[in-house]
């Protein structure tokens, strides 16, 4: 519809606009916007003096916290030299300990499921790698598994009559003697293997010494490991039931 000229004599009475209709149209399409209040100019009411007092108190507390530090640019504000934690009632906490075969088995199982089971399978039958169950490489001598753990394995190897190639990294390169002893005990006495020998940490240390003195560098090969199958450790094994410290592997004498 065309815009009608406004009658200059009656500027406030523009009859062409139906006010009710206009308002109804706006209320329909913008009902929420049409009832909105305008944002006013900002107020300038006086702020209570208590607010400033409260602010000052907060600032003073904050400042006192900041200057609690004795040396703002030091790194050792909290270092207490020679600090020893207070002992609880009833003396120091007991040393974690247990019979050696249980300690080895538990620790070995934990390490195996974390680092080995992914390739060799939870049941030792070898998911994607040579099996450990019934393998002469595992059960004949502790030297072979210890060497492989420390150095890794490369090239072709025949396990239970089946040749396989692949590379095993030096999974146990950073294992402690206790960890090496535990995992060897675990794989030699699980999945149907029954070797039953409880190697002492001294024996494991001797094997590791031999491993470090190898003439070749890098991963072991089947040819290198073949003679080790016949090599046995010297000295006495742990007797079953010997109580050892779970963390260090030291023998704990019965009191």
């Amino acid at each position, binding site marked *: *519809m065309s*815009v*009608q000229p406004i009658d200059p004599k009656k500027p406030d009475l*523009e009859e*062409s*606009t*139906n006010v*009710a*209709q*206009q*308002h*109804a149209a*706006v*209320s*329909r*399409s*913008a*009902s*929420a*916007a*049409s*009832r*909105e*209040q*305008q*944002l*006013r*100019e*900002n*107020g*300038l*009411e*006086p*702020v209570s003096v208590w*607010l400033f007092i*409260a*602010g000052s108190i*907060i*600032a003073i*507390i*904050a*400042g006192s*916290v*900041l*200057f*609690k*530090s*004795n*040396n*703002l*640019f*030091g*790194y*050792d*504000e*909290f270092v207490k030299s020679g600090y020893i*934690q*207070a*002992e*609880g009632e009833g003396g120091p906490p007991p040393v974690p300990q247990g019979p050696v075969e249980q300690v080895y088995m538990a620790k070995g199982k934990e390490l195996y499921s974390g680092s080995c089971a992914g390739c060799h399978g939870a049941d030792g039958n070898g998911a994607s790698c040579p099996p450990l169950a019934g393998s002469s490489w595992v059960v004949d001598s502790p030297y072979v598994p210890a060497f492989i753990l420390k150095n890794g394995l490369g090239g072709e190897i025949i396990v239970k009559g089946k040749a396989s190639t692949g590379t095993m990294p030096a999974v146990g390169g950073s294992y402690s003697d206790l960890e090496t002893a535990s995992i060897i005990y675990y794989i030699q006495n699980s999945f149907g293997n029954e070797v039953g020998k409880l190697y002492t940490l001294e024996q494991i240390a001797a094997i590791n010494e031999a491993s470090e003195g190898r003439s070749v560098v890098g991963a072991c090969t089947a040819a290198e490991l073949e003679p080790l199958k016949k090599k046995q450790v010297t000295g006495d094994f742990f007797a079953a039931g010997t109580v050892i410290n779970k963390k260090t592997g030291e023998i704990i004498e019965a009191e």
Partner: protein
Amino acid sequence: MSTETNSPYLEDTQLRADIDRSLRHPVMFFFTSGAAWLAVSLVLGILFSAKVHSPGFLDGCSFLNTGVLYQAHLSTMIYGWGAQAAFGVIIWLMSRLSRQECKASGLILTAGHVWNACIAIGTIRILMGEGSGVAWMYFPKFIWPVLLAIYFFIGIWAVIAFRVRRGGHIYISQWYLMATLFWFPWVFISGHLFAIGYLGEGHEMMATAASAWYRSALMFLFFTPVAIASAYYIAPKVTGRPVYSYNLALFGFWALAIVGPWTGFQRLMGAPIPSFMQFLSAGAAILMLIPAIAVAINILKTASAKKDAMAHSPSLRFTVAGVVGLLVFAALGALMSVPGVMKYTQFSTAQYGLEITGLLGFFSMCMYGAIYFIVPRITNREWISVGLIRQHFWLTVYGVLFIAIFYTLGGGFLHGEILENVNESQDSAYTRLFPYAVSLTTGFIFILIATFFFCCHLLLMWLRLGRRSSHPTLLVRHAHGSPHGPEGDLDKLENLDSNLSTH
């Protein structure tokens, strides 16, 4: 008959309605998907919390362990709900205050979809055990640069709207929004670069410090300014009163801008970083009470001038609750930064309780207030049910109170005391902390029910099933007469319209 009108009032209304209409799709999308993420986050939070007090719960699915659930719960709350609610409020408020229609709603909507896809991928990766484990930056590393890029696509339009604004006066909310539009990328980039990006590699202490700073910077420099901007808009708008004191608002803004960035390192009290970082942050966290009090007094004074509006308007009621939440949040934060108190709270559950109090009790409350105001305008429909709004309000308040009082204060301090006591046995510690751990689950369940109501309500509004009425949905027991008829029904207005045109 003219379609143009000479009335400045009608013209102004038309402009506001046009701005609302131009932003309908992106803003509605941010709010609705944000609320859905909040519900997801609360479900994950309940599972996490239940595993804390009942460790055998959900033993069957080993991938849902406590750490994974906790990371997924906080990530979805911060980036799924918090950031999206903030984006919706930022773009709407900025367009309204700058009096400019949004020209890029399609682009913003697309960016919103990509943001949601990123959150979904990140959350699934966290549940698969690939979370980064760095506080508040739990998503796998490849997510954050994408989120940042999307932010620029969303945020740039608010900056542009501000640049081409009509009218010279810059309103208080616009200060906060402009500030946070620049603070957010600063905090987000530096936090991620130093904590999980290449700048932090090999500098473990620095990465830890950056992560501690990021948590508090994101809270104080992103969530807080957005919530305050919304409160400064809603309170005068609904009451029709001017903001109580302009000078106090100016003071509150600059206090936040100056103090906010310094907080955060107090969480590392005792760590081998220079002492001034920890003590300065502790001092700054106490000083944060000052901007909080300034803002709270200003808004409460503005709102309390009209007590009936506070009782009846859902927007104002949520906003006022949020501002009270700000006071509680700042006071708890200050309390936990006093070294004598920190002894008990630094390593206890109080820290997590404080974060939840801030996110749900303060920020979310203010966002709900804004959403209850904005949605009827952009959909041109009124909220359907007073009951749903009322339930949403009270259940959220109960839940937050549970978490703030029982979990944060009671449980947090008891936990700290138990940690200090060498002789406390594991069993007695478990027995003593058990009820407080349960209080977190209870609080989350309250809030989850509230969020479910809220989500359904929002979804119905999104489907344009809201009431068509000229009367807002107010929290009053109805039936007293109104000059526009009982419900202000628009169909009756239309009848009136047609009757008039026949004459």
